[in-house]
């Protein structure tokens, strides 16, 4: 069977059922493809075994770039390229450079992190999502199990899903 084509879906009615369900399904030896929710569910990272996101590291590095860029720009313009005495200040009036440095740090950190988030999560205006169930963005949590990536038969998987608290168990095939 080709992978990433044929799925069994467990539909859960609320976030606590889902969290218990994830644990049961993983204990039952079934590999979960992905879980889809209408809102962020706390504790799902631990249940699914996700590592801590490194997006905050990305934000820090982008911020650092902003700091360096801002200082280089200001010192380059005001101190190196065309030094002038303004208000009796030094050619390198460091305190006066702090506001712009701070703003550019925040700007680059925010835009860099959000750009990274869009890239790694494949979010783009022309993106065509694979929608497993239209109710995912309304009120249902859906657990997708890829049939090709699991050793068990379809019936066994459905049984595990049902036992884990899913209110519905459906098939979803993508061409």
């Amino acid at each position, binding site marked *: 069977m080709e992978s990433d084509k044929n799925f069994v879906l467990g539909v859960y009615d*609320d*976030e*606590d059922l889902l969290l218990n369900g994830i644990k049961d399904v993983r204990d039952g030896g079934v590999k979960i493809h*992905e*879980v*889809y*929710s*209408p*809102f*962020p*569910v*706390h504790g*799902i*990272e631990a249940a*699914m075994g*996700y590592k801590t*996101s490194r*997006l*905050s590291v990305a*934000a820090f590095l982008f*911020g650092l770039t902003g700091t360096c860029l801002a200082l280089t720009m*200001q010192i380059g*313009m*005001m101190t190196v*390229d*065309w030094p002038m005495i*303004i*208000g009796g*200040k030094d050619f390198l*009036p460091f305190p*006066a450079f702090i*506001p*712009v440095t*701070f*703003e*550019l740090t*925040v*700007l680059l*950190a*925010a*835009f860099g*992190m*959000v750009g990274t*988030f*869009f890239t*790694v*999560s494949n*979010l*783009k*205006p*022309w*993106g065509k*999502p*694979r*929608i497993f169930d*239209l109710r*995912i*963005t*309304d*009120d249902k949590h859906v657990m997708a199990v890829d049939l090709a990536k699991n050793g068990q038969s379809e019936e066994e998987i459905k049984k595990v899903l049902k036992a884990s608290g899913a209110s519905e168990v459906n098939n979803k095939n993508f061409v």
Partner: protein
Amino acid sequence: MHAESVVRQPLVTGGKTVHDITNDICGRVEEKPAKSWLLAMAISLTVLVIGGYYVGQLLWHGIGEWGLNKTVGWAWDITNFVWWVGIGHAGTLISAILLLFRQRWRMAINRAAEAMTIFAVICAAMFPILHMGRPWLGAIWALPLPNTYGSLWVNFNSPLLWDVFAISTYFSVSLVFWYIGLIPDFASIRDRATTKIRKAIYGALSFGWDGASKTWSRYETVSLVLAGLATPLVLSVHTIVSMDFATSVIPGWHTTIFPPYFVAGAIFSGFAMVLTLLIVTRKVYKLEDYITIQHIELMNIIITVTGSIVGVAYITEFFIASYSGVEAEQYAFINRAFGPYWWAYASMMTCNVISPQLFWFKKIRTNIASTFVISIIVNIGMWFERFVIIVTSLHRDYIPSSWAMFYPKAADIGVYLFSFGFFFTAFFLFAKFFPVINMAEVKSILKTTSEKTDK
């Protein structure tokens, strides 16, 4: 004996289910525009067009159209700028600072407050840009671009340039913060869409969101880090705006108290504007179960706290002026309170210091009508605060022969009207075509804080 902790009031009332939230919020986007909306839109567009005429006049003839004179070189323009920037402080404060403090009541109001922030910052930016006289050359004057004057760079010692960076960073980071939150809600509208056009538009706006848990987990990290970045940003913006005045040598402006005092004033006026807008939106869209009296009460408490900080700042300024022994400084403050602009000072004191104190009475702070009236009074007061600071410090300068008064001309009023027209047109468009409440966030707290679960 056993003591039971006081159970918090539910944030979502009316026994709503998750599906009800989707229906209530998406339904407003999907239905045909109501007559009241069309009427409101027609009024704000009319104001926009009338104001637009004066903006055209100003661009054609130059800023001589304003009532500025040799002595009062800054008046309504900068008053309006600071006023709008101040209003633009509530949105990011609600979404960033209240997120860091884990205040879940922010979830029902953050979307509209952030939208208001973005529109208010655009309105604010309008004034310094128009004040340039020839705004199309503004990029050369305000941005550090290579040029053929030597290169004569922009002056990084100047708080006016810090403002350029602060306002544009604040605008763009707030916009991104707001948009990240909108993506999952746009996906909800996309998945309910019955027409092809709606599906295509909200499909593009939702960036291909599929609700995967991995994406949600990253989304949460991004929100938290953005909140951490936006918190000092909010505080920095009005600090830098206040430095436009505080770093000068004009008596009445040259005060070190300005940064915290301006930030408190900004939050004060921002929350007042959020209340003005949300009380109407809540009524028209029947959102009483999401924006409850408790939400309104909590916002009123913030208004009382920040209003009191502002009041203390007014009095401190007076004390410091007298204690400093600097005659010019003392005269600036005596002139402010008892000079020819005493009425502006009195309006400011009444609206900003006295009116929010009424919220000490629970009856007043939990009453919709009184909250609505006071929220408008607060913003009138905050406009007068900026007018008082700017005009009364300038109008009697160092040579008595050049003392003058400021009288607004049609263009002063017209451009101010234009900013109102823009603000309300943008807000009404937002209220019709965007989900006014952050559905995903409200859904996430429903299980722990709705009436159903508390029982």
